[in-house]
């Protein structure tokens, strides 16, 4: 059996169900793989772990990966199980916000730690400054939960369709009290939750072979999870060592995740990549990436794995 270490972007939850399912259902074993899944955390930067050799492959958002690439860490997208972005801004309806133009002068919660790029790109495309000036946005570094919205410390916060949005509803807020701005609808969606490896490793045929098997098994896991959301959620729950996740929350998350993975067979769609890069390059005076990336993705693995 070959050993593979996978570094997740965040803690164990249904967002990563495909990998846990593949492990649990023996899909990795079928491919003779011994996979270790490392959960992420608030201060773990997956690219750093990859660069340090602590993992073979990681789950990351493309803006963060491309930015790391430009910083001199050559990482390459080898597969893209998520087709659609789940990122959105959730605002109180009573603030009167109806479109991006109304963001001016508002306070908005944003995740940082490499997750801020989609928001910054979007705002610079809209031409709205984020420097707390009068006609700009006051940005808050959003913490782990949805409190800033509930406590009215922010007019809008970042949410994922599959996680934080549910938490807002759970807190007793009616959907009619909220307005959502999905990045997908605003045409600024960037690719989320792709699989990335170090470029130099791809020169090693044995590694490439290992990744082919890994992607194949993982995609099998994803498709299984899409079809059996409740069982997948339970598998995730079994793997959560904090004991903090609840069944209902994970089932709902799995159902939402299934919508995002639905359109993907694992191969990166070039038009999605294009849109991501354009969005990031359009960042006005302070773009996330300054030049067209080259070699930031490959179909080599998915071509071999999926055909």
């Amino acid at each position, binding site marked *: 059996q070959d050993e593979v270490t996978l570094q997740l972007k965040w803690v164990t939850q249904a967002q990563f169900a495909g990998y846990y399912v593949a492990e649990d259902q023996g899909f990795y074993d079928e491919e003779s793989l011994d996979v270790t899944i490392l959960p992420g955390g608030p201060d773990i*930067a997956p690219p750093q772990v990859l660069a*340090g050799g602590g993992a073979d492959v990681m789950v990351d958002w493309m803006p*963060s990966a491309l*930015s*790391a690439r430009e910083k001199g*860490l050559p990482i390459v997208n080898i597969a893209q199980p998520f087709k659609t972005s789940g990122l959105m801004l959730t605002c109180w309806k009573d603030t009167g916000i109806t479109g991006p133009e109304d963001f001016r002068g508002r306070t908005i919660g944003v995740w940082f*730690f490499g997750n801020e790029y989609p928001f910054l790109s979007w705002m610079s495309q809209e031409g709205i400054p984020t420097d707390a000036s009068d006609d700009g946005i006051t940005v*808050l*570094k959003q*913490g782990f939960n949805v409190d800033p919205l509930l406590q009215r410390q922010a007019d809008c916060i970042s949410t994922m369709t599959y996680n934080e949005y549910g938490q807002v509803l759970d807190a007793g807020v009616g959907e009619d009290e909220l307005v959502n701005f999905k990045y997908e609808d605003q045409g600024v969606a960037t690719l989320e939750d792709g699989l990335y490896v170090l470029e130099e490793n791809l020169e090693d045929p044995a590694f490439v072979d290992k990744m082919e098997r890994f992607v194949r098994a993982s995609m099998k896991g994803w498709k299984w999870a899409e079809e059996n959301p409740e069982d997948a959620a339970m598998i995730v729950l079994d793997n959560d060592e904090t004991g903090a996740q609840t069944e209902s929350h994970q089932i709902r998350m799995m159902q939402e995740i299934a919508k995002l993975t639905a359109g993907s067979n694992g191969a990166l769609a070039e038009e999605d990549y294009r849109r991501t890069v354009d969005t990031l390059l359009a960042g006005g005076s302070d773009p996330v990436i300054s030049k067209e990336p080259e070699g930031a993705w490959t179909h080599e693995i998915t071509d071999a794995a999926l055909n």
Partner: protein
Amino acid sequence: MTLVIFALVLWAAGFALNARLATGPAADTRSVQLAVPAIFGLTLIGMWELIVRGLDVPGVILPPPSAVAAAFAGELDVIWADFVQTFVKGALSGYLIGALAAFAFAILADRYDFLKRGLLPVGNFMAALPIVGTAPILVMWFGFDWESKSAVVVVMVFFPILVNTVAGLADTQAMQRDLMRTYGASYVQTLFKLRLPAAMPFIFNGLKISTTLALIGAIVAEFFGSPTLGMGFRISTSVGQLALDMVWAEIVAAALAGSAFYGIIAFIEKRVTFWHPSHRG
């Protein structure tokens, strides 16, 4: 590899130089006492540079000091703004509020023995609540800006100062207290003319311990929510952006600020408690 060997040579040389200085005839002079730790620090920094280069450690794992210095110099305005947000607004205000509250409680606890016996054990227990747990709660209660950082700092510095002040207020000799009684002195007179001055060495001990706690507390609290500036914000964001040189530049700034804060309090202590045997020199 040669660079690594160089590093070891540098270490040996630095140590030999220090050994000579420290045991030499001028060992007690002010300049040598500054030079020895400086040489030690420079040796460490030199070794860091050489080893990082020699072993080709990726810059996203550990940048060489030269890169850190470049980031520090290049982003001085950013670092300054972060410093003002975290240190001046968050840490300093919290430190002042925490210290004043601790003094007030200490005087109360000193006055009412019942309170002292009840408050101190409970206080010790509360002080053991890990800030990484209390910080998110305080951020939730007090909002994202410096007020919540200030609150975290208050919680962190309150107990060390309280405990030390209470101990200090109790640290008068029976004879010194009896003297005041022979004068028929009132409680307030005894407090201001005897107990507070006698407590100063203890109070400053608490104040000194709290300097580093204050800065660390403010930085930690920023990890759990902040506006888009501050040292803690910059550190966590820069890690996410793999800008490790910036991370270390902020850490250096934090260490400088922390050491300077400590140094200033120690200096004031020397002025105020000049009479204490440990300062008479």
